């Protein structure tokens, strides 16, 4: 994270007209597609319940399933590496690059690689990395981080994308997505052919078979995992499902939640590297299983966030994300899921603002395919921040006073009267018919965007009493 504060990033985002156009277009489109897709799934709610049960069960027995997955993958000729944190994961991947004398890498989409800032590590070693997912490629060429977990370049309009890629990739200028994709594809073909190593993420790892499932729409994942000599797959420790049957359940809700598809265009099931007499596939498959803070929340009130299947639906549905986009969060994972994951896995400091970037409207929980109770965990993290004294001073000092007053009925009534008098005094100076148009700090936040109505001349208690007499 840079020195820029959350509030400054938010201000930049809110003032960015183009960002608004882009976010409005795509979040609305994805949200609509999701609704339609679930409408066509028979017993959709029951499937979501099952998906949730599978995730809950897996996380409750995570160590066992990881062990089973690792054993089965090795049985199929794959290699398994465990990394405690991002630094260790980088060491493993860079050592592999050295071992296989890698000069160029082609990459599919992987959020874990973003956690590792892997591209930078490669660049330091003079190894060229080509992102092959179109969205990832756009942010790579722009020198940015993804701003959405499934639509990395959601913050760009197609016009901006056309201009950027024209400049960076030296392709003919166009603002037609189909034309742009055509040109990029030609570039990518060359890259797939020469790359020494392919790096991908993992959507799910199946414990009973040692299979990794890779879900994508562009075919780049398939090529990345099969064309180069070596395939390195990066996954978080929680990305496991026990069986192929379980996989079929979570896949049913993943594509629908993410893009409104019944199934993504490519669902790659990879079980080990190429075996003779097979003609395709990499010579070696390495799976790097990364913890990077995840095991810290196991067994805590935040463990539920590990059920996440990274569909991105909560981002699209979130009215805060819709306004500020992903970069404002300042974290690898943005949106509601990021506001739990980031402080949960990396510690509340310096991320204490993120759990507060929510009106607790519950839209995230409503759309989450595995019904993760994100608002509950945002509150839990707010509690942790509050306990650690990370709240603003006026909140820290104000709430105990409020509590003192609100547990003493007579004092409470008196305080309301006093507030009313104060408000009337202020309002009379402002001359807006009793409405307050400017409140002093810390309440000035309210009057930045809205007026405050007059207090009642007679409280409800008084009116009720008079009526009853």
């Amino acid at each position, binding site marked *: 994270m840079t020195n820029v504060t959350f509030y400054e990033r*938010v*201000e930049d985002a*809110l003032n960015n007209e183009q960002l608004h156009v882009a976010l409005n277009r795509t979040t609305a489109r994805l949200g609509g597609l999701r609704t339609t897709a679930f409408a066509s799934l028979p017993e959709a709610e029951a499937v979501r319940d099952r998906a949730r049960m599978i995730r809950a069960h897996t996380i409750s027995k995570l160590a066992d399933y990881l062990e089973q997955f690792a054993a089965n993958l090795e049985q199929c000729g794959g290699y398994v590496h465990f990394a405690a944190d991002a630094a260790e994961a980088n060491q493993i991947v860079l050592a592999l690059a050295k071992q296989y004398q890698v000069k160029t890498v082609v990459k599919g989409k992987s959020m874990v690689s973003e956690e590792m800032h892997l591209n930078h590590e490669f660049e330091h070693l003079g190894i060229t990395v080509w992102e092959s997912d179109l969205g990832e490629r756009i942010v790579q060429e722009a020198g940015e981080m993804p701003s959405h977990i499934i639509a990395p370049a959601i913050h760009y309009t197609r016009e901006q994308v056309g201009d950027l890629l024209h400049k960076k990739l030296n392709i003919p200028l166009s603002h037609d997505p189909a034309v742009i994709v055509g040109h990029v594809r030609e570039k990518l073909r060359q890259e797939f052919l020469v790359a020494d190593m392919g790096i991908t993420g993992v959507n799910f790892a199946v414990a009973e078979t040692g299979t990794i499932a890779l879900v994508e729409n562009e075919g780049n994942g398939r090529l990345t995992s099969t064309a180069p000599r070596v395939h390195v797959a990066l996954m978080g420790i929680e990305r496991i499902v026990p069986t192929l049957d379980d996989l079929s359940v979570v896949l049913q809700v993943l594509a629908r939640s993410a893009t409104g598809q019944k199934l993504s265009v490519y669902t790659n099931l990879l079980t080990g590297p190429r075996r003779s007499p097979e003609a395709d596939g990499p010579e070696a498959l390495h799976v790097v299983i990364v913890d990077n803070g995840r095991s810290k929340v196991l067994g805590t009130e935040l463990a539920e966030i590990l059920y996440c299947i990274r569909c991105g639906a909560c981002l699209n549905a979130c*009215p*805060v994300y819709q*306004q*500020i986009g992903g970069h404002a969060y300042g974290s690898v994972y943005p949106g509601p899921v990021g506001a739990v994951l980031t402080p949960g896995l990396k510690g509340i400091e310096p991320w204490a603002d993120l*759990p*507060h*970037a*929510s*009106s*607790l*409207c*519950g*839209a995230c929980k*409503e759309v989450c395919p595995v019904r993760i109770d994100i608002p509950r965990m945002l*509150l839990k*993290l*707010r*509690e942790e*921040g*509050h*306990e650690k004294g990370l*709240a603003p001073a006026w*909140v820290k000092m104000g*709430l*105990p006073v*409020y*509590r003192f*007053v*609100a*547990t003493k*009925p007579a004092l*409470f009534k008196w305080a*309301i009267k006093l507030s*009313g008098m104060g408000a009337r005094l202020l309002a009379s100076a402002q001359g807006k018919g009793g*409405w307050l*148009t400017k409140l002093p700090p*810390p*309440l000035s*936040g*309210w009057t*930045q*965007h*809205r*007026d*405050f*109505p*007059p*207090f*009642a001349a*007679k*409280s*409800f*208690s*008084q*009116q*009720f009493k008079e*009526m009853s007499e």
Partner: protein
Amino acid sequence: MAQSSSHHSAKPAEKPKSVQLFVTCMIEAIRPEVGMAVVRVLKRLGVQIEFPTDQTCCGQPAFNAGAVPDARAMARHTLDVLSRSASPIVTPSGSCADMLVHQYPALLAGDAHYGPLAEQIAARTYEFSQFLVDVLGVTEADLAQTQGHESVTYHPSCHLSRGLKVTEAPSQLLAATGVETHALNGANECCGFGGLFAVKMSDISGAMLNRKLDNIEASGAKIVVGCDVSCLLHMGGGLHRRGSAITTKHIAEIIS
């Protein structure tokens, strides 16, 4: 009238003769006319009102700030106040009802005295529109004498619809009054209130509010109706800032 979904497993066997009114701090201080409208409606429907005068605030501001000990203290106070009578509790606020129904039991789960008490109170707490439709089974005939109002649009507040899952009752009540109702684009989107969120994250909240207000203005309605005074204050404050002629009313004011 068809029943909306509800958290209450057991509905009272008989229609309650009397209810306790938990009026909320917002109505106490700023919009008492909403409380009076609630009283009129309930009385007309033959329900007596108990009003425990030592009630204060449910504690949501502290709870949402993560100040759990403060929230617990306010929850204990409210439970003391509401447990003296066995009557159901009615509150004209979706979010305060949700606080009592869902958050109190969780907040006080480890407390030998207040934990069970929170469960008991949760089981007999209702949001106003929910109580009318689900418990009293209000019919169109009951609302026939409703005065004519200007056209309305309904904003389903988040804790009412997603927390309590009360999604049908308010619209049913509005339909029964025959008031001209305009559809609201993006109705289910939050108005941006969120308690202290509107103060601490004022700019994000303001952007959410503006989107909501654009939709409200585009609806063509003269009045925004809701079941949460706090959200109505937020939207009303934004409308006032815009110089809009659209006003906000609690649903009780429409049917009283």
